[in-house]
Each structure stands twice: as structure tokens, then as C-alpha cells.
């Protein structure tokens, strides 16, 4: 398919790997963070890590929206799902994220009407078809996903659908990146920028990284050649002494973003003063809630929720993994107590989580290296 196949060409991949090698300064160690969970998945799915020289290390950032949802928010979702007459809808991965006691999948097994949807528009359709039931959508995701929730709520209002509401957990990517950059135990040379978030917000919000923190950013697509070319562009900036935001994903990302999507988001959402991120704690103005104009669709106003903060399990080191301080396989419970089948931490739940990506694609290699 056009725009897909040409970015999976193995021969060009080898060419790019050779160019990466030629760009390296002898004896220097390079650490590059991929911000987005989709990149983490591509890196292991296509074996990009194996094509890179040993002194280029990829660090996984906080870019999986499932991985950053704290337990207390899952408990809130379960409480809403258990209300009489509620049809609770959410994306697939969210079903298995552990709360303090149960997952949404457990709640479904215990009798709650929990349904998986692919789009919030599917949740709205369920509301339209079930006017005597309350339909709640558990909204998660970065700026890539927030426009679809915003569009759904605009349609709900336009159609006068009153039995639809939303638990809003949408988060924004810039505040946690700034928090990571402020972290004293982080050593990074550059960032692979989140291509699909940038499709919506554009490149401008990332200009603070080179300006304030002196690190290059290359906004990247998700096919294997996209990721390799982005790594090359970062290394080339470093070798040429440049530091700026570059856009590798020009076929999708306009520098100013998607103005229509931003306009709809501005109408439907406003910033939360604070939001808790798993492993990163509370970060101010890092999440979205429904604006005053759309408050009637806020499930947290419509239903009582516990709203209790729950500490992460002690054995779980998702926090360190999300900050890139340790690799997933260095966590004490990785692959033993914590597996995709029985996840303790959220990084193991989503296939895009760093731990699940390592477990599914990198475990054998690591085991061989250890021998």
C-alpha cells in the first residue's frame, strides 16, 4: 500500500543502518528516548534494536496511555461500571489494567456490563441503540485520541443524546516530558518525537526541548525505516552540532498540526490543574477534563466515584521503567511474577508497554546475552 510498503524495505534499512554507523563518534555512548509506545512496539516488532550499534541505546519513554493510568482511576472506572443500568465502554487494553483489587475484565466477569469498543463513536452508537441505559465511555489517550472523544461529544450534543457520558483520562505529552527532562537521574542525547500526537498538535509544542534543554527532537513515523531514519537524523544533528526540532514524518505531520482537531479539542476540553501519572506522580496541567460547556457529559459528575489514590505495588518498578532509569528486564518481577498473562504493572499490560514489548520480542535475545 502507498505510504506503507516503501517504509518497510529491508535493503534501505541496511543502508540506513550503515549511515547510522558512519555518523557515530568513536567511544561515545548515545541514549535516545522514543516517547511513544507505538515506537517501542515497532522497534521490537521489526528488530530495529538489533540493527543499531551497541553504543546507541534506545530508552523507552512514558508514551503508552494505558501504562500511565494510575490504579485509583481504574477503581473509579470499575465503580461507574458497577452502577445499575450502566453499559461501560472502553478500549481493549484498558480491560486488563489492574486496579487496587480488580480489572475491568474482572468486573465484567462479576456481572458488570463492560464492552470493548474500537472508537468512542461506537460507544455513542451503543447509547443511541439503548436509550433506557446509561452508556459511559472511559476515555484514555494522548492528543492523538482526544480529538475522537471531542468529536463524539459534539455529535452527542448535536443529536441530543442524554444517556451518554465520559470518564475523561486524556493526557497531554509535553508536561511529562518536561518533568522527565528535569529529572536528575536522566541522561539523554535526543528524542524520537511522537508522530501521531504531532499529527494533531504539530511540531511547535516540542520546540522547548532544544531551546530549554539542548536536546534534538526528530518527529518520527512508525514504520521501521521511519524509526531508523529518525535515529540517523538525531545522530546527524549531534555530529553537526545542531539542536532543533526536525520532522521526519512529513507525509502526515504539518508543522502547525491539525487545526480543526485542535479547535474541537479547545471547545470540549480544558486542562486539569493536576493529574497523577503512574510512576511519575502528580504533574500539573498534564491532563484534560470536560469544559464547562460539556460538563453535562462528565461521568464523574453523573456518578459517584471513590476518587481514592492507590499506591503502586511495591514490587513493580514501572516508574523507573517509564523514566528510562532501568530497562524492563532489570525489574525484579519482570517475566517471573509479572507477565502479560498476569501483569502487576501496566507496562506489561499493553502490547505497546515497554515491558510487554521486551517480553514478547526481546526476552530470548536477552537470555542468550546473559549466557
Amino acid at each position, binding site marked *: 500500500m502507498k505510504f506503507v510498503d516503501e517504509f518497510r524495505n529491508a535493503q534501505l534499512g541496511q543502508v540506513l543502518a550503515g549511515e547510522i554507523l558512519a555518523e557515530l563518534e568513536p567511544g561515545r555512548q548515545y541514549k535516545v528516548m522514543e516517547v511513544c509506545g*507505538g515506537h517501542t512496539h515497532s522497534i521490537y516488532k521489526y528488530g530495529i534494536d538489533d540493527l543499531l550499534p551497541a553504543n546507541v541505546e534506545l530508552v523507552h519513554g512514558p508514551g503508552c*496511555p494505558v501504562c500511565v493510568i494510575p490504579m485509583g482511576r481504574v477503581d473509579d472506572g470499575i465503580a461507574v461500571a458497577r452502577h445499575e443500568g450502566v453499559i461501560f465502554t472502553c478500549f481493549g487494553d484498558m480491560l*486488563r489494567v489492574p486496579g487496587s483489587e480488580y480489572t475491568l475484565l474482572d468486573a465484567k466477569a462479576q456481572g458488570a456490563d463492560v464492552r470493548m469498543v474500537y472508537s468512542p463513536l461506537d460507544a455513542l452508537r451503543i447509547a443511541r441503540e439503548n436509550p433506557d441505559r446509561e452508556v459511559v465511555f472511559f476515555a484514555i489517550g494522548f492528543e492523538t485520541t482526544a480529538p475522537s472523544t471531542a*468529536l463524539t461529544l459534539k455529535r452527542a450534543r448535536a443529536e441530543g443524546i442524554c444517556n451518554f457520558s465520559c470518564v475523561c483520562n486524556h493526557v497531554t505529552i509535553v508536561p511529562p516530558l518536561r518533568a522527565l527532562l528535569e529529572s536528575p537521574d536522566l541522561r539523554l542525547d535526543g528524542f524520537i518525537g511522537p508522530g*501521531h500526537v504531532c499529527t494533531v498538535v504539530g511540531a511547535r509544542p516540542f520546540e522547548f526541548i532544544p531551546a530549554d534543554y539542548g536536546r534534538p527532537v526528530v518527529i518520527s513515523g*512508525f514504520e521501521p525505516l521511519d524509526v531508523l531514519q529518525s535515529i540517523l537524523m538525531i545522530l546527524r544533528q549531534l555530529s553537526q552540532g545542531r539542536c532543533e526540532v526536525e520532522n521526519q514524518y512529513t507525509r502526515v505531520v504539518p508543522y502547525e498540526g491539525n487545526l480543526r482537531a485542535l479547535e474541537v479539542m479547545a471547545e470540549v476540553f480544558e486542562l486539569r490543574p493536576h493529574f497523577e501519572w503512574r510512576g511519575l506522580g502528580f504533574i500539573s496541567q498534564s491532563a484534560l477534563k470536560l469544559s464547562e460547556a460539556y460538563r453535562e457529559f462528565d461521568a464523574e459528575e453523573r456518578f459517584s466515584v471513590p476518587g481514592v489514590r492507590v499506591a503502586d505495588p511495591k514490587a513493580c518498578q514501572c516508574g523507573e521503567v517509564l523514566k528510562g532509569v532501568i530497562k524492563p528486564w532489570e525489574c525484579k518481577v519482570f517475566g517471573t511474577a509479572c507477565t502479560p498473562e498476569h501483569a502487576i504493572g501496566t507496562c506489561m499490560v499493553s502490547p505497546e508497554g515497554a515491558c510487554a514489548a521486551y517480553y514478547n520480542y526481546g526476552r530470548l535475545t536477552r537470555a542468550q546475552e546473559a549466557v
Partner: protein
Amino acid sequence: MKPERCDPVTGHCITCGDEGIVMRVIELRDDEAVCADELRTRHRVAIDLVGPVAVGDEVLVHAGVAIGHLRAAAIVGARE
């Protein structure tokens, strides 16, 4: 919905992975388009958030909503 793409046990969730799927516009309706992915599976896609699209265009789809309109890219591997 394609359950195999959003399976809670084994599958890959395009939404949680922040993934966008490139799809070709096959047919235009009022506020949506019928689009085909690389496996030629057809999907109903909301097109409110992108500019005018025509049959044959490629769009980037996330959670049932087109969020981008694809343009010709630079040749991969070429030096910028």
C-alpha cells in the same frame, strides 16, 4: 471493529498504541467515508477533522476518526 486488532488477551490495540492506520478512501458519504486498510478491510471513518477528501486519497485513521491527510513524502533513505 476488527476484534483481532484490539484483542484484550493477545491482540494489538491500535488505540492504546497511539497508532494511526493509513487507509484509502473508497466511498464518500455525508460525514463519513468508507476506507480500506492495507489488508483491504473496509472501515467507516469520520472525516469531520480533515479537510476535503476525495475517493482515492490516503488518510491517517485513529479510533475510527481521520486525523490526517497524507501527502507525498521525501524518498526514504535520501540525504536531506
